[in-house]
């Protein structure tokens, strides 16, 4: 083995003996021990490798990532609310007793805390939900900034994303801030942004129902993360995902 051949093999040899057991590396190391120039080169190479390895491992990780990953664990389903749905009407057009709803929420949350009802949504939708939550948690951009909902609709339609979406009564009360065009698994997604009076943002993601294999039911499924709440539901040919800062009055405010 020549000195050049030994160097080429030792390029893939890390300090600390990790690779010393490999026969080719062992042979190249023997060349280095016998050749002061190769030995000096290898020592410099090891110093470089150790520094590079240490620096690469200190590369920053986005602060939101862990929370976004864990968010999909924190789903609370409210299946009992399905009982108040009125056939043939949108879920928000039925008027359940707020007290009863609150009692159900508290009951379900209690069960969640004790571990009885915890479940995650089925995979494909869960992935979509996780991705959209991550979009909210990290930087996003609005392609159109306008208080005019019609302008947002027109923009989305021009991009091939859903523009004929429906707004819940709660969202209709909020100021429209704009919208953004997103893609999930190459499917167009409309992101509509709303601004609360306190300037906090609320986001509605709209996806064609057929794009996801397991769309959520017509009754909104409420999910809780550390500081975000989401509601997911299907209406007509679209699925909706709403995200907003966690709020005890989430349902009354937005749905």
């Amino acid at each position, binding site marked *: 083995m020549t000195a050049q051949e030994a160097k*080429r093999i030792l*390029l893939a040899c890390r300090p600390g003996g990790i690779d010393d057991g490999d026969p080719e590396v062992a042979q190249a190391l023997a060349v280095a021990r016998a050749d002061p120039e190769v030995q000096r080169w290898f020592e410099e190479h090891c*110093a470089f490798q150790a520094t590079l390895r240490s620096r690469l491992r200190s590369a920053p990780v986005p602060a939101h990532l862990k929370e*976004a990953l864990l968010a999909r664990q924190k789903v609370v389903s409210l299946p009992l609310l399905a009982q108040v749905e009125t056939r043939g009407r949108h879920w928000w057009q039925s008027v359940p007793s707020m007290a009863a709803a609150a009692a159900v929420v508290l009951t379900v949350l209690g069960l969640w805390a004790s571990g*009885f009802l915890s479940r995650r949504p089925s995979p494909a939708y869960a992935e979509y939900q996780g991705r959209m939550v991550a979009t909210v948690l990290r930087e996003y951009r609005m392609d159109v900034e306008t208080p005019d909902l019609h302008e947002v609709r027109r923009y989305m339609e021009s991009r091939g994303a859903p523009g004929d979406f429906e707004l819940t009564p709660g969202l209709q009360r909020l100021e429209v801030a704009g919208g953004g065009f997103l893609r999930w698994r190459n499917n167009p997604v409309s992101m509509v942004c709303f601004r609360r009076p306190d300037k906090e943002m609320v986001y509605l993601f709209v996806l064609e129902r057929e794009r996801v294999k397991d769309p959520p039911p017509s009754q909104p499924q409420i999910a809780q993360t550390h500081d975000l709440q989401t509601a997911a539901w299907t209406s007509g040919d679209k699925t909706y995902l709403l995200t907003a800062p966690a709020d005890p009055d989430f349902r009354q405010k937005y749905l």
Partner: protein
Amino acid sequence: MVPETSNVQSASGQVLSFEGLVETHYAALYRFAMSLTRSESDACDLVQETFVTWAEKGHQLVDPGKAKSWLYTTLHRLFLGSRRRIQRFPEVELEEAADEFVSPPPDMVRRMEAAELIDLLGQVDEQFRTGVALFYLEDYSYDEIAHILGVPLGTVKSRIARGVGQLKGLVAKRLKGERT
């Protein structure tokens, strides 16, 4: 009760929880993904998809001790799948690496931003890059890298050597650029 799809229990009773796996591996997986994609959002998406895949299929893993390499293998496959769908980053044409045997001074490398070094790693030819990333970021053995990438051992060693050579050249070039 933890959803069964997010946990793996070994014969000895060891349970790998979703949260535990995220806690232990998400940062390193993100750095690996960054080296592949050179994009923060794409890297985050890859890590997300990897853990979603775990939630779907992780329970099929027979040996919980292999969870880590399963995550890396899955992330790599997802990356390859996404590359087939969209070629977002044009490959950087690398000059013949005349500097591959020249080791940049460690004190200068130490002063470089870690994110900048990840970006340079991302400029290494794709066929060499993945092996080099696993080589530096996780201290995987040649055998383990070969298993994750699904290529023969000899190919892995050759790719790592060429990739490390390219990376050294890129770091040297960047440092040279800073000095001029």
